[in-house]
């Protein structure tokens, strides 16, 4: 049994004179004890609604939420044993930073010395020791965000909810804090869910990532699995930087398998016995199918296809090469510099083992082989 269980959660916002908004649809999710989970998605995908339903600021339209086997969806926020850091910081303006953080401990009946020890420990963690006596309106947005984070982390709770916990921080500090917070959470076995739209942050901090879009949980898996075995077109195109190349191909039979052609010159041949029956059946029945290939899996400078370069960017540690291939745009990434200019022709290698095949409804029916 998981630490947190969400079962068939639906959330519909109704307001007079407007069509109802279905923010979260039939969400099922289970989070284990000590696990760190990221809710990842673009804005309006339902991730923050989900977080607020767990905290109790939004009611669930239907479905149940259980924390440590205890149903909490009908409880007042105060009784859910949940701590939260808010996106808008939400510090108490009349209290100093120290009082703001200590405030979260007041209801816990802790000795004064213990309280100040914990406040100072968490303040060191997020680097706000110097501003403990300041008032919220006198400190910067990034500092306020760290205070808000500290106020959540200092508490003893069954579950920690962090809404865009590091959105306002400078990149270097963000990287440092990510590491420290991950250590803290792991050391104390704290269970946490955080909302973010930043893939790097999700990958760096989370054990598992829940990708949401349009109120629907698309896939809930580790970062590796999301990359290598995306459940559908959305996850395939959302995860990874630069995004996966998605191409429409024509399907035809050839001896021993299928031929997926992007154009007259460029085609993949896949042996039938490398595919399972369902995929074979799908390919037999359709005339065209959508395939995906990661930019990192395209060989640049070698291979059988000759393509024209549209742009070539060296980013300091990798090259992004955009080419025209059979009338379509493809992006490739290589770790080395490519000595070619836009307009030049270059050799390209596309390995059929590296392609993902998507069914008509967008689900991925065949994943690339992991090499």
């Amino acid at each position, binding site marked *: 049994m998981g630490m947190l269980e969400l079962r068939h959660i639906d959330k519909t916002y109704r*307001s007079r004179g407007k069509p109802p908004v279905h923010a979260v649809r039939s969400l099922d999710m289970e989070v284990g004890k000590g696990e760190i989970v990221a809710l990842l998605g673009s804005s309006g995908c339902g991730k923050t609604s989900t977080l607020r339903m767990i*905290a*109790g*600021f939004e009611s669930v339209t239907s479905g149940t939420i259980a924390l440590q086997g205890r149903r909490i969806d009908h409880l*007042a*926020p*105060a009784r*859910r044993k*949940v*701590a*939260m850091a*808010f*996106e*808008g*910081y*939400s*510090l*108490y*303006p*009349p209290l100093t930073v120290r009082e703001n953080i200590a*405030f*979260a401990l*007041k*209801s*816990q009946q802790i000795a004064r010395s213990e309280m100040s020890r914990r406040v100072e420990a968490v303040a060191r963690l997020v680097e706000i020791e110097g501003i403990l006596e300041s008032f919220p*309106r006198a400190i910067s*947005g990034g500092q*306020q965000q760290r205070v808000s984070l500290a*106020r959540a982390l200092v*508490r003893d709770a069954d579950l920690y909810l962090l809404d865009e916990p590091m959105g306002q921080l400078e990149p270097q500090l963000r990287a440092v804090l990510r590491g420290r917070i991950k250590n803290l959470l792991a050391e104390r076995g704290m269970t946490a869910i955080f909302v973010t739209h930043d893939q790097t942050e999700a990958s760096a901090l989370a054990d598992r990532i829940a990708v949401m879009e349009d109120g629907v949980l698309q896939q809930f898996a580790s970062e590796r699995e999301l990359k290598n075995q995306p459940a559908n077109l959305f996850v395939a195109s959302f995860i990874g930087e630069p995004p996966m190349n998605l191409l429409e191909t024509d399907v035809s039979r050839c001896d021993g398998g299928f031929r997926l052609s992007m154009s007259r010159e460029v085609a993949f041949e896949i042996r039938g016995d490398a595919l399972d029956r369902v995929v074979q059946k799908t390919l037999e029945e359709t005339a065209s199918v959508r395939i995906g290939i990661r930019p990192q899996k395209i060989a640049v400078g070698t291979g059988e296809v000759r393509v024209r370069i549209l742009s070539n960017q060296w980013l300091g540690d990798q090259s992004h090469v955009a080419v025209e291939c059979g009338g379509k745009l493809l992006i490739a990434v290589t770790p080395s510099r490519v000595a070619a200019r836009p307009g030049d022709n270059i050799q390209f290698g596309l390995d059929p083992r590296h392609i993902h095949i998507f069914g008509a409804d967008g689900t991925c029916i065949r994943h690339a082989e992991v090499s």
Partner: protein
Amino acid sequence: MDHGSLAGRIFRGVALALILVFFMFPIVWILLMSFQTNEQILRIPPRILFEPTLANYEALISGQLRTAAGNLEISFMHNLWNSFVLSSLAVVLALVLGVPAAYAFARYKFKLGETIAFTLLSFRFAPPLLVLLPLSLYYQELGLNDTYVGIVWVYQLIALPLILWIVRGYFEDISPDIEHAYRLAGHSWREAFTHIAVPLAGPGIAAAALLSFIFCWNNFVFALILASADKQPVTVGALAFVTASGIQYGQIAAAIVLSVMPTLLLALYAQRYLVEGLSLGAVKG
């Protein structure tokens, strides 16, 4: 701040002085009048220099109005007390009812919410004279005519919409997440209201209370019809200075000074809260 050139500064000074004179003149003139006798006030041309007299204030405070036609009993000080009691009770009642209502309107969207809020505001649109006749008939039937309860009830309807709409705006300016954070830390909804929302909206509540106090204090028509001599506020009581032997300008001026004093002092005292209230937006975020 840039203070501009010398010419600019002189112009600004002159303009400010003119504006000050324009707005302060009636008040200063009334103040001067309150220290003059009727004869001094009415002579032509009027003079700035005169021998001040406290006779007007004496008459008001002692309640003896000496006119050419003889002595007249007035109850100005009692009227002042009435004004104070009626206005403050009405404002307190309106705060007790209005602040939680304003919070509800600001935080929760419920059926007919906007309609109810607007209906309450629409009490302010209706001309009082239109409401007076049915109101006084009902009041006579209910036995509320000429009672403090009845007048406070009507005054409260003046104060409530103001408080409701002003305070609602202040509550809407406070991020609900501040209360959410408080509630997550183990406090009830009611505690979040009394410990977080109300203190944060404090300046706004003070401003609204002050404004509605002044509105109640200045009310004339309702009190004129619904209250008899011993329940009258100053606004109605001042009519007593229009006597058979003429209008007692000196006493009227003194009465105005005395009746403006409480609201003026209150406004001066509450000034910093009002300014704080206006800059509340800085707290957000």
